[in-house]
């Protein structure tokens, strides 16, 4: 197990370097990093050159990348356009997005897996068909449409919730945004659990468990569910990274000041430091989530052993 973790951690290094380098190149080559520093007007050439020298932007790109990564690993993410260190922005933005993601993941696990179990055990019945249709509809309606519609109905028309989230963004204020963020993945979790459960229902070990005379509840929860949840766990694990990245849309709809909001502002104002910093952390979160998923396999499926 220990050796496996080390190997996986080592494998993460090139992927992390590759992904951050890819984004670094995108940000730097596509946009002019000093263009945002002179406000609405374009910088005059002398100022631009001066700024570029000051920030080391006249260096070759790989040098810039190396310097940047060196700084990142000492905790220095650079300075945002308004003079605040990027790390300060992160400290205010990440807790909000992490709360939002947590709400979304809880929805996925509780609602998604429950619906999946209910439909998986009743394949072909009306409840199964209804839930399947509902998941198809949820998958097809893009998140921003779902979000805008729910905001219009629940927030504006019926006044059940506040249409936008205040800056402190506590858990209870994030329930609707979390549901919106989770919606598409929720539908996938339901379908995945359903398929996986239906596949395993005919497995030998389930028949053995039933033949032993175990109560149905115990067969489903201890035997069937444990094995059927493996693909679901993989999906949810990889989804954590996608959720944090996808929060841009949800945060924009509900005016939540989280990672997505900061990134959007950073991109609009062409603030390279903010964008690269946040993206680097997001990529790292995604990779660690994937690693944890692989380790969870062994816990869920006793047949899998890591040497």
């Amino acid at each position, binding site marked *: 197990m220990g050796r496996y973790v080390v190997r996986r951690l080592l494998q993460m290094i090139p992927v992390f370097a590759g992904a951050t380098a890819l984004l670094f190149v995108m940000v730097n080559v596509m946009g002019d990093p000093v263009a945002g520093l002179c406000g609405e007007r374009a910088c005059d050439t002398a100022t631009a050159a001066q700024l570029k020298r000051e920030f080391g932007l006249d260096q070759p790109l790989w040098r810039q990348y190396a310097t940047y990564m060196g700084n990142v690993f000492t905790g220095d993410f650079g300075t945002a356009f308004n003079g605040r260190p990027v790390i300060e922005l992160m400290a205010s933005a990440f807790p909000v997005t992490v709360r939002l993601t947590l709400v979304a993941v809880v929805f996925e696990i509780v609602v998604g897996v429950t619906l999946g179990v209910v439909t998986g055990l009743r394949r072909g019945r009306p409840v199964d068909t209804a839930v399947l249709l509902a998941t198809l509809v949820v998958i097809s309606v893009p998140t921003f449409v779902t979000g805008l519609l729910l905001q219009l109905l629940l927030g504006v028309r019926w006044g059940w919730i506040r249409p936008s989230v205040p800056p402190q963004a506590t858990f209870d204020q994030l329930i609707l945004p979390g549901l919106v963020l989770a919606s598409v993945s929720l539908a996938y979790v339901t379908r995945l659990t359903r398929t996986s459960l239906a596949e395993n229902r005919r497995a030998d070990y389930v028949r053995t468990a039933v033949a032993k005379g175990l109560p149905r509840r115990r067969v489903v929860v201890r035997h069937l569910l444990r094995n059927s949840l493996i693909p679901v766990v993989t999906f949810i694990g990889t989804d954590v*990274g996608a959720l944090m990245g996808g929060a841009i*849309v949800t945060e924009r709809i509900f005016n939540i000041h989280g990672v997505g909001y900061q990134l959007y502002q950073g991109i609009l104002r062409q603030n390279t430091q903010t964008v690269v910093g946040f993206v680097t952390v997001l990529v790292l979160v995604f990779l660690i989530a994937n690693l944890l998923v692989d380790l969870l396999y062994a816990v869920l499926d006793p047949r899998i052993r890591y040497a």
Partner: protein
Amino acid sequence: MPEPSLPQPQEPERAIAGTGTGAGMDLAAAEAATVGSGETGRPAGRPRSLWSDAWHDLRRNPVFVLSALVICFLVVIALWPSLIAPGNPLHCDLARAQDGPSPGHPFGYDGQGCDVYTRTVHGARASVTVGVCATAGVAVLGSVLGGLAGYVGGFWDALLSRITDVFFAVPVVLGGLVLLSVVTSSTVWPVVGFLVLLGWPQISRIARGAVVTAKQHDYVQAARALGASGPRILLRHIAPNAVAPVIVVATIALGTFIALEATLSYLGVGLKPPSVSWGIQISAASPYVRNAPHALLWPAGALAVTVLAFIMLGDAVRDALDPKLR
């Protein structure tokens, strides 16, 4: 299809090749027959291929027929929007901003006084173009790279796997914001290019897996033992058996690409205003949603129906091509 590479005993090779591929197909068809409901009094001794079997199933699937009809309709109005909406989508009259439906303008007006019906109909073109072009690009690029890597194996395979890992670690919407925010062109091509750039690893992973599986089959070993050339084995023996999963994933991806285009346009980096697209319409309508919800609901509905049709089509195709999943 390349002709058999050369000398060797050509006839036997062809014979083996024939029975080889045939056996693979028969197996799939037989599975379909045992698992699915494929028992429909077909003449004995005349086995159908995987494709004709799938087509046979699809024609009887109401979900497939319905979504195919919706898609045909969409393609027609994407090609000739003036057929059902003769107006000019860029003609707007500020005096009628946010007005409700009136005769000749069944969907009402948006915040700029443009006719929502005309714009919604004309918006189909952008979505269909982006979806079809991005899917075609992704399918070609992904299956060529993934297929080759899976076939060659070794270093190139490992390299490709690491590259796909890198692309998977980049969140799509985020990458779109970063890359497309500096594009000023208002055509669909930057969006298509971006979707291909970030979408191909998914297909390449599927294609690679399918090729690796197909490669181990006996008929491939047999063809190799008889001296068939690499390209011939890849194209004649492996590709026909590996293409089904790629088609399935690509069909479903088409729906997601359309949704992604709308999302990027909603964020302001996809298609840019002079062009007409559902994402732009929804984005423009969202500030006025309290007073003129119809300006948001119609394009949103059109978008949802379109994506739904493509995803249901993909679902039906998957059920038909992969009987084991039933």
